[in-house]
């Protein structure tokens, strides 16, 4: 008995063959964090073979601790980039916020929790300012945050008067730097906070309407607003929530350097973008996963650490990260392209 098979897939209707490339394309689209994960594992294997110390728990703990600041910022950066925006001011806001926290405790004798709340509020307000300028004044996010980057950086330097502030260890604000040992792994509270941030936002992006609206707004704002989504509100929420995440990042920073340094976050703005892009989130919005940004942040640190252990000139690490960024953006373009 024969039955004429009806064409039932888009490929068949269009007379296309399911090639290997097409299948890879589909899998990568569904799991944007897959290709960075492969890079991370491969890099780990190579660096492990080059130097056996790479996989020692102590070394892996250091990598995690080094990734904690940029990792936390990359959560906020992911939210903004998913909406097809970008936040160039993210590191500057973190430093400003951390400085407010530390200075209030040191010079103002404000209790730690109150200083934390005020510094956190500064970060949220900074995010709200970016969001306001993007949604109400309708300026491109790149320009808005380029401007606020200068403003927040200058504000930080003026406020700090060129001074770094050091706080004693084991106070409320530096609690994030205290160590928690799991076996031979030495994690800090800051590392755990960063991992919790990823868990929370992985859930929020996958399992809440807000998360879906963030993707939809980044993918196609017009279609989203026709579907009844208030896209301006979604955009504003991305910047404000990113501000809150930066506030937590500022707390992690204070714990990590035991105080605040106005020059601490010079590279954090771009490093957070690097982590997000290497992590497979599209700079054009609407596609990506927050866990990819964690992998991206880890990749940068793994290259840094692994090449140092292998005795390679550290400039090659910068070069390697540059190559990875270009590869990631190229892969994104390929995944985005629709062949029909």
């Amino acid at each position: 008995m024969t039955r004429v098979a009806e064409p039932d897939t888009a490929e068949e209707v269009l007379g296309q063959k399911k090639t290997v490339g097409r299948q890879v394309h589909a899998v990568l689209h569904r799991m944007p964090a897959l290709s960075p994960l492969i890079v991370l594992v491969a890099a780990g294997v190579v660096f492990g073979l080059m130097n056996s110390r790479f996989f020692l728990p102590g070394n892996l703990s250091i990598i995690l601790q080094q990734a904690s600041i940029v990792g936390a910022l990359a959560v906020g950066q992911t939210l903004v980039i998913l909406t097809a925006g970008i936040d160039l001011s993210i590191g500057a806001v973190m430093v400003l916020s951390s400085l407010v926290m530390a200075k209030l405790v040191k010079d103002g004798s404000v209790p730690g929790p109150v200083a934390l709340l005020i510094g956190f509020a500064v970060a949220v307000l900074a995010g709200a300012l970016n969001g306001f300028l993007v949604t109400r004044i309708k300026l491109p996010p790149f320009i808005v945050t380029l401007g606020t980057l200068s403003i927040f950086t200058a504000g930080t330097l003026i406020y700090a008067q060129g001074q770094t502030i050091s706080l004693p260890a084991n106070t409320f604000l530096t609690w994030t730097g205290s160590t928690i040992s799991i076996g031979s792994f030495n994690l800090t509270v800051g590392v755990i906070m960063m991992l919790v941030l990823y868990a929370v936002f992985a859930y929020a992006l996958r399992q809440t309407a807000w998360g879906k609206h963030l993707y939809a707004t980044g993918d196609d704002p017009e279609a989203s607003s026709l579907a009844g989504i208030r896209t301006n509100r979604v955009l504003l929420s991305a910047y404000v929530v990113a501000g809150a995440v930066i506030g937590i990042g500022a707390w992690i920073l204070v714990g990590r350097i035991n105080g605040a340094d106005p020059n601490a976050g010079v590279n954090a703005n771009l490093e957070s973008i690097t982590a997000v892009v290497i992590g497979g989130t599209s700079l054009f919005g609407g596609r990506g996963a927050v866990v990819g940004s964690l992998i991206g942040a880890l990749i940068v640190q793994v290259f840094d650490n692994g090449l140092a252990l292998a005795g390679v000139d550290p400039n090659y690490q910068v070069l390697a990260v540059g190559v990875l960024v270009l590869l990631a953006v190229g892969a994104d373009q390929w995944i985005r392209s629709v062949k029909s």
Partner: protein
Amino acid sequence: MTSEQPGAVPDHPGPDEEPPLLRLRGVSKHFGPVRALTGVDLDIPAGKVTALAGDNGAGKSVLIKCISGIHAPDSGQMWWEGAPVHVRTPSEAAALGIQTVYQDLALCDNLDIVQNMFLGRERLRRTGLDEVSMENAARETLTSLAVTTVRSVRQRVASLSGGQRQSVAIAKAVLWNSKLVIMDEPTAALGVAQTTMVLDLVRRLADRGHAVMIVSHNLNDVFQVADRIAVLHLGRMVDVRPTADSDRQIVVDLMTTGESTRVVREPGRPV
């Protein structure tokens, strides 16, 4: 230009007649000095496909945007199921049961079919999104509309063909319990087979009791699927009649000059 007077139609539906699903009276809209719509009257009955024809710039898009809440008319009145209404936003239109399938389809390419169909109305359970229930509802809706060419409801929309995208957009409108589905050029970008598929879907929609309004340049489509043809000319509604009382020449005359003196002669039909 036209002998019809908007004022000739009663301002309110009479007590005896069944009110149409949607009734427009005297709807006008201008953009600065440009009068896009002038005193448009139109009834949209349930269970029928009403085609809206007209040349470029005749005001077709403006009219559907007024109905779907994107533009606010400057004057005129709308009745929905006999009751006067004001539709100020697309969500208010959706709340009434008016869904519009736009020409560019208004689907998010990088979201899958389920996410698109539930965009803005996600179903929740205690622990998050109710993906199972949404996926089932999406699949059932597509099946009920006999849209069987889609491999998986978890496919992203970008991987679909034009006809499939149109089907998903229409299914989305159905899923949201719409009583009136407005379609802007549903077949404009489609090939022959896919056009047939979409027109069949339009027909099924009306047979299920939905009111359907389609805007189309393609008179083949109009005559194939529509029960009634309304023609706009320079912002005025110049003619509304059953498809059986019309033919291509009449519609073309109405579209280009706003009037037609031609009378349809059909076998077995009194002249």
